[in-house]
């Protein structure tokens, strides 16, 4: 596709508005349970952000608010100039631009790998099938599994499935990618193949928010690391400062726990 024009418009926008995700004093409750407390986060275009924190701290909930898989009750979330509210049109606009990769892949088991990749482009972007298939093959090549295109997800290994899931998201040409613990459900020997794909993706200028405990990955690609605990953002810093010189006790405790593992 016309990559050059895309970069061109991106740069134009960069001058006008560098912030692509703006989260402002956002709160969320599950019933009585205050799961996200006063979240403030601005993400610049092209920025790579790694989010970590203990289990149950609200990491998934927060990134799922960005494409409105969860709704927030207070505050503001603006994605690429579109504010998320109950307005279904706005939600659709945001979801077109935001790709998501899940911990458990969530591939469609009744469709082939290729059909998994073409479903959304065909039905949401109204791409002609042939074009969608060509594009899907390109992305499958990029995640290094073009030869699996006609298999069903159940016939692939976990690592291959997660790479398909990444390709499937990329087929929508999203400006922002959300990853929710993409390697947590994988066997150790498959983690690397998925991380490699993500590192390559990171080098291409896409905006990335990634919940992960892969600290090596964080050090390599992250512009910023965010630490969450108890539904709050406790600390955010560059990876260097974050790992070498954590400011908060809870961060230190958390880092000592995952690094000693």
């Amino acid at each position, binding site marked *: 596709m016309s990559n050059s024009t895309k970069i061109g418009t991106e740069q134009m926008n960069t001058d006008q508005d560098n912030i692509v995700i703006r989260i402002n004093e956002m709160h969320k409750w599950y019933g009585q349970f205050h799961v996200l407390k006063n979240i403030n986060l601005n993400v610049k275009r092209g920025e790579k952000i790694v989010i970590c924190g203990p289990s149950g701290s609200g990491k998934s909930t927060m990134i799922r608010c960005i494409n409105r*898989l969860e709704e927030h009750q207070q505050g503001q979330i603006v994605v690429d100039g579109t504010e998320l509210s109950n307005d279904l049109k706005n939600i659709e606009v945001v979801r077109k631009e935001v790709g998501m990769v899940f911990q458990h892949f969530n591939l469609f*088991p*009744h469709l082939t790998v290729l059909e998994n990749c073409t479903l959304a482009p065909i039905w*949401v972007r109204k791409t*002609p*099938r042939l074009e969608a298939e060509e594009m899907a093959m390109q992305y499958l090549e990029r995640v290094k599994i073009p030869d699996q295109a006609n298999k*069903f997800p159940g016939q692939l290994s976990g690592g291959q499935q997660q790479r398909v899931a990444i390709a499937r998201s990329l087929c*929508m040409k999203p400006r922002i990618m959300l990853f929710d613990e993409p390697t947590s459900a994988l066997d150790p020997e498959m983690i690397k193949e998925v991380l490699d794909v993500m590192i390559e993706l990171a080098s291409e200028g896409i905006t990335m928010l990634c919940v992960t405990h892969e600290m090596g990955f964080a050090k390599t690609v992250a512009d910023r690391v965010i630490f969450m605990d108890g539904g709050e953002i406790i600390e955010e810093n560059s990876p260097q400062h974050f790992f070498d010189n954590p400011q908060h006790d809870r961060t230190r405790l958390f880092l000592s726990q995952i690094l000693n593992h």
Partner: protein
Amino acid sequence: MSETALSQPQRNIVSRLWNDKETRSVIIQIIAFAAIFALFFYMIRNAVINLEAIGKDIDFAFLTQPASYDIGQTLIEYTSRSSHFTAMIVGIINTLLIAVFGIFLSTILGFTLGVLRLSKNWLTNKLAYVYIEYTRNVPVLLHILLIHGLIVHALPLPKNALNVGDAAFLTNRGFFLPSPQFEFLFWLVLGLFIIGIIFSLWFRSYAKKIQDSTGKYYPVFWISLGAIVGIPLIAYFILGSPIQWQIPELKGFNYKGGMVVRPEFIALWIALSCYTAAFIGEIVRAGITAVSWGQTEASSAFGINRSRTLSLVVIPQALRIIIPPLTSQYLNITKNSSLAIAIGYMDIVATIGGISLNQTGREMECMTIVLLLYLSFSLLISAFMNWYNKRIKLTER
């Protein structure tokens, strides 16, 4: 395994065959088949000997003799002078009528119930729940007797019939409905209807082709609906409603003209459908909930809307869970229709397996016929559903 074989080369051949996975399975099948065959042979021989002892043979000639009994609901020409064979055909048609109508209504009711059970609306959800729990926990025979009783005892005699818009009359002798008399122009409407169906079939593949090549998609469902229902309906009114409805009229003690649906048919149809629908509702609910929420999330995360998520992602996966138990329900409703005899609906069991049997004393023959008939209906339904199941499976693996 090969190791043990090597270490014990002197093991005898029987033991070796028995311990081979494939030969063992063949041996077991041969033994099982022989046993079943022997059992059948023994039973049939026994029956023949016993019949001979009381001076009876097996003879199907009685089928050509006059049945000399009346049947209330006959879709083909039948009088008491018709043969037992014709009586049997009437019974078959009546059984199939209940099965087909029952499968149709229970499927619609059942899918509606299943979806209502999943609704977030507290009231509809609980109503569906109560309906399902009540209906499936009362024996179906009771439902049949109850509804039949309601029609026969609660509905008025023909002379004070429940009048529905001066066209239909509900009485305890049955529901008297207007019957259509088709005028010439009606066939034009019918022609449009058939053209509508053909057009829709063609349009489906045309729309897919257009979508594949340009990405643009048409509202196929609504356009098809317009072609099949809308245009014929408009034509019907433009052509001046070319159907004359013959309205039933009270003549003496009963209604004449129009058509009558008998209370036994209605009772059996409603009772079987409502009962089976409760089970189908649970099957549908289980099938849809078995598709993980993550599937819906992944689909909506792309911006695919709710109805497309259902039709493209959830339903195709739910169907393969729903179809096998749904098949059993279709078989159940077909076989449960034999309870017709309780309210005197003349199905297979009541005709050839009931009155014909009693009059001729041909138990073996009649029961064999009844058994073979149910068996073939069931096998036909199974075969069709298996074919359908395979078809939707093939698209996925």
